[in-house]
Each structure stands twice: as structure tokens, then as C-alpha cells.
């Protein structure tokens, strides 16, 4: 419902049953976090390339897709922008986690409560039988609001280390104003970099056979050699494609 402009195209393209060629892999990434931390803005930023003017509370889930090319392979990143408010997610949770490829936890750096409820989100993720085998990342949003930061990078980094997740601080509104210099900054789009990192990681991690374990001669299919070194670090996004 919060979708405007280009995202409408996404949703219409999703309803059509003409399946894209099976060559393109789809990575289902869910974005999870308290209400109001900016999940919708973040996903919108990545898929539509700009900050949405007006958003309302997400009901249930919104799907956003974007086709990216990683190492010559077209990959469709399917972002599930989930509802943060409990009353809008209710019975949806199991659908979120079904066959998910990566989980993005989002908190608001200007809202300590959203940071404090992260363990609950991680717990929910664990409960839905995802454990740690699915790549998870932690994103602190709204870091352009330098004056009202309540969650310091150190604390967040500690938390991220504790849960062995990479941490990113960014702003969906103004992703270039990245405060942390370690991520290069420049003119690149940090939000995009985050999702591309995840995509790289997924690509390097997943063999091409998705649902069937390669039986016996499965080694013929593993083509991911040469990309393993790209996806694991948070720094690899800089040279995406």
C-alpha cells in the first residue's frame, strides 16, 4: 500500500504468471525489524533507486524485486519488506521465513528501543528453523541524523560480532552521507552496496542446484569457483559486477 511510482510496476510484474526464464536465480531476502525503522524505505531505495516520498505502515508484506547482474549472471533479488507492527504480521511469519535465502535485520540508530528488540527478532528467526545457516546482516538505518544518534556504532558492532553478523550503518534517505569512513563512501550508494554484498555472498555460497542435493556426480554443477572470495566480506561490494 505504501508503494508509489515504480514499485507499482514491480507488483504488476509479479502478478503476471509469465515466469521469467528459469536461468535467473531468485534470492529471497527478508527485511525484518521494529516498525518505523525504515525497512520499506530501505527496500524501496534499493529497488527503485530513490527515497519514497510517503510511506505508510506495511501490512503483511510488500514484495520488491530487482534484477542485478553479478559476475555475468543475472540474479533476481526478491526483497520481502515485512510489516514491523505485530498486528500487521500475525499469521504471516511462517511465510516470511519459508525458503528464505538471507535475512536483513534493521534497526534505527536514533531509536535505542529498536536496537534493544533485535534479540527478539533474532530469536524469531531462529525459531523458524533458520538458525545461522542463512546469511544474516544487521543494518542500522537513518545514520544521516547525526545529532540524534542513540545507538553508537561500537555498541552495535559488539552486538553484531556477538551474533556473527556484518554490521552496516546507512541511511535510506541519504545513503551517501555515510559517517563511517571504512566503507569507502565516495559517491556510491551505500544501500545498494549492502544488498549487493548479500547477493554476492548468496551467489558465492549457493551451488546452482537449489532444491536438489547434487547426487553423486553433483560436483559437475558447482560453478561458483572464482566468486567465493568476493562475497564474504563487507568490502566486496565496491567492485560488484
Amino acid at each position, binding site marked *: 500500500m505504501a508503494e508509489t511510482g515504480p514499485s507499482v510496476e514491480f507488483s504488476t510484474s509479479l502478478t503476471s504468471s509469465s515466469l521469467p526464464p528459469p536461468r535467473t536465480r531468485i534470492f529471497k531476502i527478508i527485511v525484518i525489524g521494529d516498525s518505523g525503522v525504515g525497512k520499506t524505505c530501505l527496500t524501496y531505495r534499493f529497488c527503485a533507486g530513490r527515497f519514497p516520498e510517503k510511506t505508510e505502515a506495511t501490512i503483511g508484506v510488500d514484495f520488491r524485486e530487482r534484477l542485478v*547482474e553479478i559476475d555475468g549472471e543475472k540474479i533476481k533479488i526478491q526483497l520481502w519488506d515485512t510489516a514491523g507492527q505485530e498486528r500487521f504480521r500475525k499469521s504471516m511469519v511462517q511465510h516470511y521465513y519459508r525458503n528464505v535465502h538471507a535475512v536483513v535485520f534493521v534497526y534505527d540508530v536514533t531509536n535505542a528501543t529498536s536496537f534493544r528488540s533485535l534479540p527478539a527478532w533474532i530469536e524469531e528467526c531462529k525459531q523458524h528453523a533458520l538458525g545461522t545457516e542463512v546469511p544474516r546482516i544487521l543494518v542500522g538505518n537513518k545514520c544521516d541524523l547525526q545529532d540524534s544518534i542513540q545507538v553508537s556504532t561500537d555498541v552495535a558492532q559488539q552486538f553484531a560480532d556477538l551474533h556473527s553478523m556484518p554490521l552496516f550503518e546507512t541511511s535510506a534517505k541519504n545513503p551517501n552521507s555515510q559517517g563511517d569512513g571504512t566503507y569507502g563512501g565516495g559517491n556510491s550508494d551505500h544501500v545498494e552496496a549492502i544488498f549487493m554484498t548479500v547477493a554476492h555472498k548468496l551467489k558465492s555460497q549457493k551451488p*546452482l542446484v537449489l532444491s536438489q542435493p547434487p547426487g553423486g556426480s553433483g560436483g559437475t554443477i558447482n560453478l561458483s569457483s572464482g566468486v567465493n572470495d568476493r562475497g564474504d566480506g563487507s568490502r566486496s561490494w565496491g567492485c560488484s559486477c
Partner: protein
Amino acid sequence: MTDSEERGGAGSAETWKRHIVRQLQNRDRNQHTKFQDLIRFYTQLLEKTSLAKGILSCSTRHTPSDNGSSISALLHQNNQLRKTTGELAYKVVEMQQQIKIKESFLDEQHARLLEEECRLAVALHAHQELQERVDRVKVENRALKLEYDTLLEQQRQEERRLREENDRGVHLVEDMIHLKQQAAVRMNSRNERRSRARAMNLTTARSKVAIDSSSSAPTSRSTSPKSEDQDDCSDRRHTRLFRSASVTSPRFLSSIKQLFDRKRRGRSVCSLEEDLMCPVGVCVSARVPARALQVLEAHEQGINAVKFSTSSDLLATGGTDRVIKLWEVRAGSLTHKGTLDGSTEGITCIEFDPTGLRVLAASYDKSALLWRRDDPIPKLTLTGHSRKVTAARFSGSLHQVVTGSADRTIRLWDLHRAACVQLLRVTSYCSDLVCSENCIVSGHYDCKIRVWDARAASCVQELPAQGKVTSLDISADHRQLLSCCRDDCLQLVDLRRWSNDRMCFRADGFKCGSDSTKAVISPDGCFLAAGSADGAVYIWNVSTGNLESHLPDKHSSSISAVSWSLSGEYVVSVDKSKWAVLWSDI
């Protein structure tokens, strides 16, 4: 005088003297009597006087004796009296003073009284004013109260509206969540399907690679060895600009398209090797529907027939309103694609030809009609029956059609000549028929299923049924024949043995709703589906013989027909009150 007479009569001396004495005595007596009263009075007076004197003397006798003391007493008395008088006078003065004080006090009181009266008057005035004000305020209050009451009422109404709106909001949110949930489920199942498709492609690719190690045809990219493909692909991509993700190579796209088209036709692994003209194929597995994806009012009157095309993406429904509607099945919903008209009466039966391009229908108007699926005008009308046509089927070849009718005949038609080439006479009303390679199986109202040899035009066999046969269906492999009878029982007969052993499928609540109720076999032959008079769809498992699923509540009237898509994915049921329901497992 007396003394003068006495001296002159001395001679006569004693005589004259005596006379003079008598005269004197006489005078005396006279005089005396005259004064007697006076004397008596006098004495009386004297007595009285003496009495008075006596009294007086009595009273005054000792006065002179106590004179001195009495005087002092009197003086004393006098003094005392004087004193008393003085005191009294003083008192008088005091009293007068008090009176004065009292008077002044009184005056004061008077003044105050006046003052108080004034104030009282003022107060009264004020009181009156206040009273007036009170009255006014009361009036105002009354008005305000009235206003308040109306406002209260308004507020109550607004609150009620708010509650209602909240309720509506909650409902909307619930609906929304429900929709989103469905979308999520669809998205998940799509993802899964895609990954399965990929996996399947890869398996076929692997097997092909095993057979033929050389690089495969350029049209099927997925069957080429992945590593080469990948290198090739990435080489090509690297020359492109950064993130030109939306640009798709036409070669790539078309290859995928071809791949997909081929996949579509059969929905099965082995279909790749099959003859493209006969995609009857083998469905890998039919999925038992569990949920209604869409419920729609498909026709203006009751729907009698429903059929999926052989490619599973098109659905045809026909009803009493004389038209056939074509629906596109996409992403779990039906979209109206076109209407085929030309029949002058209701449609009783619909059939797609094996290529899926033509639609054959039987009609109440004693004819059978043939359309191209993209042309609403019938291409052929087969007339000759004398009563309504109940069934029309393509026989084994594409140019031959068999029709069954209520006029107790079965006719074979040649579509090239548009003429009846053979006429089979039966003794009973033909309700439905199906065609196998060389035989025609027809169901009749005399509780018989008859098998005909199409070439010899003779009845090969008669199979008994328990009731009026309402519909027949033949499995995709032409091995099993399903019949639905009015005794609320589905029978499955193995056509290869022509024996009398058969499986019966019944269920509590399942009731055959009409003389033309149609039951079907799932494309993989594992399930049977039929609609009941109570509006529920019943699905039986052929291997166990038990009821597999029961889907109630979507139809409000008797279901007339069901159809199972050849992909095994969808089931559509239609009812006598113009509703059609699309069912699936997700």
C-alpha cells in the same frame, strides 16, 4: 328699766314691787322658753365641743409631753425625708441620664435600622436581580442542556461510527493481511516451482550431457554444460556496462522461451520426447486441490460444462445462457478471454481438440458446433440429431467427431466433409460418451455402458451400471473408465480387461445432482473428482479407494461439472447457479 320702776313705786312699795317681780318673772319665763332650744343646742354643742376637746385633748394630751423628742424625731424624719428626696432626686437625674442614653441608643438603633432597611432594600433589589439572573441562567442552562444533550447524542453517534469505522478498519486490515498472505504463499510457491524447474532442467541437462558430451544445441541453453555456459555468459556480460540488468539478450530470451514452450506443453519430463501434436502426455502428479483460488460468476445462467484445454492455460465453460466462455488461467486466477456464440440453446458438453486450437460443443439445439478458439463464429455446425445432443468428442483422429444424443443415436462425423459418416442406433437415451483409439464408450439411461467398435459400427460389449449413467471419463492412458451414476456412486473400470470387476467410490454426503453430472479422473489417474448436489467437491484417491478431500462451502447449488487441468495443478467446478470455482493446492 326694771331698776327705774322699783324706786318709783316704794309707797305702794310692796305691791308695785311684787308686780314688778312677777312681771319680771313672766318676762323671764317667756324669754327663757325662747332660748331653751338655743340653750339645748348650745349645751349639745358644748357637749360636742367638750367631746371634741376631749378627743383633741386626748390626742394632744401627750404631745405637749413628748414635744421635744417628737421634734427631733420630726427633724430627723425631716432630714431623712430630705435625704430620701435628695436620693430620689439623684435617681431622677440618673434615670434621666439613662433615658438620654437609651434614647440616643434608640436613635442609633433607629438609624441603624434605617440603614439596614436601606441595605435590605438594596439586597432585595440585588436578590431580585440575582433571581432574574438565575432565571435567565436557568433558561440558558436549559438551552445548554438541550445543546449538551444533542451534542452528547451526537458524540454517542460519532463514537458508534468511530467504533464501526474501527471495526471496518480491523476487517480491512484482516482482509488485507489475508490477501498479502495469499500473495506471500503464491510468491513462495512460485519461487519453489522455479527452483524445482531449474533443478529439473539441470537434471535433464546432466543426463543429456552424459549421453552427448559435445555441447548441445544453441536453442537449449540450459542443457549445455553449465561451466561453459557460465564462462560464455560472463564473457559476454563483462563487456556490458555496469548493472545493465534489465537488458536481456534476445538470443537468450528466445532460447528460454522455446525451452519454456516445450516445457509448458506437457508439464512433464518425458513430454520433450513426445509428439508435439498429441500432448496428452503424462502428468507427473496431480495435486489435490485444497483451497479455492477464485470464485466467480461466470455465466448468466446455470453452467453445464467445463473443460481445460490440453495446454492447461485455457478453460472453457458453457451454460444454459447459450454461450461458451473462454478463460485464461494465469497465476491462480481466471481472466475472461473471449466468448464463443452461435448455439441457439444451452450448451451441454465442451471438448478441446488435442491441439487445443478448436473447441467442440454439444448443444440443446440438436446440433454440435465447432469453433476455432479465437473466432467467436462457429466454424462448423453438425446437424442431424433429432433431440438434444448430450455429448460431443473428438475421436482418435483430429478430423473425426462422435456425438451422442437424447434421440438414442450415436453419430460419427467427418469434419473435412462436415457430414455424418456413421449412425449407431441404441435402445436408450445416450447421456455421455468417450472415445478411445478404436472404440467408443457410451453411457445410457438404461443403466448400461456400451462399448462400440468404431470401425465395425457394432456394439462390442455391454457393461452394467447401478443407475442412469450421467457421465463418463477416460483416463489419460486410456486404461480406465470412470462412470458416474444416479445411485451416487462412481465406478472405475479397467478397460484392458473388460471384466466386471470394478472399483466403487462413494462418500457420505455425495449425491449426484442431476442426470448430467460430470465426474473426472485426474490427469495422472490417481484421483477422481466429482461435484455433489450439496455444492461440495469430492475427491477420491484411486489407489486407496477412500475419500481424499472434501471441499464444501463455495458453491451454493448443485455442482454440474468439474474439470482437472492436464498439468494437474487446477480443478474447476461449475454449478447450476452460474458460479465457477477455481481450486488449487496452494
